[in-house]
């Protein structure tokens, strides 16, 4: 008996590792665009984490006589209206995007998994009431609700992350719920019930591992959606306030007044935002194909 218990977990670990290795190898072999997307995501992560070391200057260092300077050797991306180095601000902006993207995706996955698994597995009245609640939230167009909530709660990174995570989490719970309903009829769940597993054990040990693939895809897509929405909200002036550099904020009205004098102010933040969102979309698409070829189309951008 003791021997059995000793060997089981090891086998599971090695199996899990080979699954991930398998996904990784197939990603590189079969999905060239997905691999490019993965590299972009990796580059974003590294840039965000090591922003202090990568940026040539601080994000708020103001230089004398470099206001709106065009790109040059010392300032490859030029300078903004206060004489701050654009390259450094873009690099620190990547950090904001990484923080917002990952934390929103984390909250989203936690909330939507909890709602989706409970509603999907238990079904009945719980599902009915839960889904009507989700319907209610989903009715209000995303951007309207986000802007309203941020205005009421207050501007800043933490409120924005909480609002986005909460709303995405509720909205995407349908994806998890759908996946759970898809596996609910499987005999192994009946078998687990027959040998006397508690509902909690069934949910955590049998349902959760089998809906992991859609959850991972959900995580990837949410990172991209969160980065894009954060930029839109900051662009409108309701997001993360100055002097924190955000890609959306750099394009907002504060910088827009000077863009005719220095067009590079408009170019860089949007270009990097586009590349990052494109990369995340490609990676998400590739992962979706690798995990489950039936799940084509459907999941769109932010909602």
């Amino acid at each position, binding site marked *: 008996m003791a021997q059995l218990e000793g060997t089981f977990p090891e086998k599971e670990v090695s199996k899990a590792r080979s699954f991930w290795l398998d996904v990784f190898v197939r990603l590189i072999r079969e999905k060239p665009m997905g691999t490019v997307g993965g590299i972009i995501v990796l580059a974003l992560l590294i840039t965000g984490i090591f922003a202090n070391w990568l940026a040539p200057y601080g994000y708020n260092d103001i230089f004398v006589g470099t206001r709106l300077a065009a790109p040059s050797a010392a300032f490859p991306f030029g300078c903004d209206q206060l004489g701050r180095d654009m390259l450094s601000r873009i690099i620190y902006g990547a950090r904001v995007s990484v923080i917002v993207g990952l934390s929103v995706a984390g909250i989203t996955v936690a909330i939507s998994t909890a709602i989706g698994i409970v509603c999907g597995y238990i079904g009945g009245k719980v599902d009915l009431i839960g889904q009507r609640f989700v319907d209610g939230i989903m009715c209000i167009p995303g951007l309207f609700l986000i802007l309203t909530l941020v205005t009421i709660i207050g501007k800043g990174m933490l409120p924005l992350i909480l609002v986005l995570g909460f709303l995405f989490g509720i909205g995407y719970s349908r994806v998890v719920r759908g996946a759970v309903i898809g596996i609910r009829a499987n005999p192994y769940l009946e078998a687990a019930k027959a040998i006397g597993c508690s509902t909690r054990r069934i949910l955590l040990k049998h349902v959760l591992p089998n809906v992991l693939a859609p959850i991972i895809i959900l995580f990837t897509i949410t990172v991209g959606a969160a980065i894009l929405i954060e*930029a839109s909200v900051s662009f409108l002036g309701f997001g993360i306030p100055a002097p924190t550099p955000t890609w959306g904020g750099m394009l907002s009205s504060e910088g827009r007044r000077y863009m005719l004098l220095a067009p590079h102010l408009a170019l860089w933040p*949007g270009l990097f*935002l586009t590349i990052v969102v494109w990369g995340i979309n490609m990676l998400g698409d590739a992962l979706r194909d690798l995990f489950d070829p039936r799940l084509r189309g459907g999941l769109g951008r932010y909602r």
Partner: protein
Amino acid sequence: MAASHGGEAQNITQVVEMIKHQLGMDVPIYVQYFRWLGGVLRGDLGHSLWTGRSINEDFLHRLPVSIELGIMAIIVALLVALPIGILSAIRQDTITDYITRGIAIIFISVPAFWVGTMVMVYPAKYLNWMPIVVYVPFLEDPLNNLKEFIIPALILGMAMSGTTMRMTRTMMLEVLRQDYIRTAWSKGLKERAIIFRHALKNALIPVVTIVGMQLPILVGGSVIIESIFGLPGIGRYFLLALMQRDYPIVSIINLIAASFVMLCNLGVDLIYAYLDPRVQYR
């Protein structure tokens, strides 16, 4: 001294009470809610806290702008998405397919507010050309009105066309593998007849759903586009109200937007049943 101070305090309290009474905030919150809802049901949207003007008037004044922008964006999206989506499907795995799919993904990934900003900045800087940013009503000057709306509509329709393009392609691919299409081929029908008369009709049914589902995104996107291009529509009204914390306007617009989305969802379901006889509601 003490007396005058007390009097002043009393005055201020009185003033506060008076204003609370004027704004209807001296009653419990559920009474306020039902008063508000009753007003909405009678067609009275309330008054702006900032200007004191009736919201009905401002809203009706701005609604046509947003509707025109929305309709033009949908037309643009469909004009781009359908032909390219179909082409991409019938030339699957060719260079045409790869290029069009790449374009679709780029359309989905490029943020609308960046494209809008770039359109405002670069042509003005290097070509001495700028989009019109002063609103011209359609009835006064239709040509200039359309000229003004076409660029915002293109940008707003871009993201939608990307998603619709992908959906059209996927559905076409699925339909083209059906048995009845093979039957049509073996009957000796021309490709044109097969694509347009047999395949397209069935492939477009789910596309209708996708277009309907994207209307809420369109409504959200109008906030950004209207603020960039200075169009006095509902989105800009909403943004202005948020900046001034004009909550009556904010809550009304949220209510109307949510009702609009619900109507869209209902409409999509009904149209779906009409288009696809296999779907029946009982």
